[in-house]
């Protein structure tokens, strides 16, 4: 599955790129699977996703829980807890 990943805040800084297109293996079904897969891609990913439980995932610009499937995603956002307002 090909998908566009977009990173924000300290996740973006640690992975050291704002976005990328990735081809995900079939074993990646849920948002949580995706975070585990990304952690294997290098030290920056490892540092960004060291504590995956705090990381937020948005599929096609809507928040999803880690146990939700990401099938059909065109764009997946990965970022820390929000601190706007």
């Amino acid at each position: 599955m090909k998908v566009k990943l977009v990173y924000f805040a300290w996740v973006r800084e640690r992975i050291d790129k704002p976005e990328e297109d990735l081809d995900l293996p079939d074993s990646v079904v849920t948002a949580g699977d995706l975070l585990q897969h990304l952690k294997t891609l290098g030290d920056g990913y490892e540092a960004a996703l060291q504590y995956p439980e705090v990381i937020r995932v948005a599929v096609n610009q809507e928040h999803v829980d880690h146990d939700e499937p990401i099938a059909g995603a065109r764009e997946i956002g990965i970022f820390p807890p929000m601190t706007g307002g």
Partner: protein
Amino acid sequence: MTTPTIRVQRENFDLQTEIDRLTAGRADIGAVVTFTGLCRDEGGSLTALELEHYPGMAEAEMRRIGEEAISRFSLLGLTAVHRYGKIAPGETIVMVVASAPHRQAAFDGASFVMDFLKTAAPFWKKEHLQDGSAGGWVSAKDADDRARDKWITR
């Protein structure tokens, strides 16, 4: 059906102008509540907050929050504007305007939108310090989660 007015912009805003847009030419609004959030500098060491956002999703999430507030409190109007970029202490960050026939709905609407903006809209704050260093990303506060959760449990 009332739809929220949502903007994400670099520039400042004018509250009275936003209020006038919601109230002009109608006589069914009895109450308008506005919230303005400003950049604080508690320790005197901050030169700016840098606001990053997720373009597209920020607007979409603000719109979802605004629609929920209109429906839940029967608001007659709802405007939310969030700034991005570098914002110096004392400058504005965010603005919410809620209008309704009576005051409790307007107060609740503005407060609800702020509590969800803080916890669900994809914005992040990074500190820039007077010694020239980046002071790090502002951490999410448990108090903000609790403020949001009071709307869920009641």
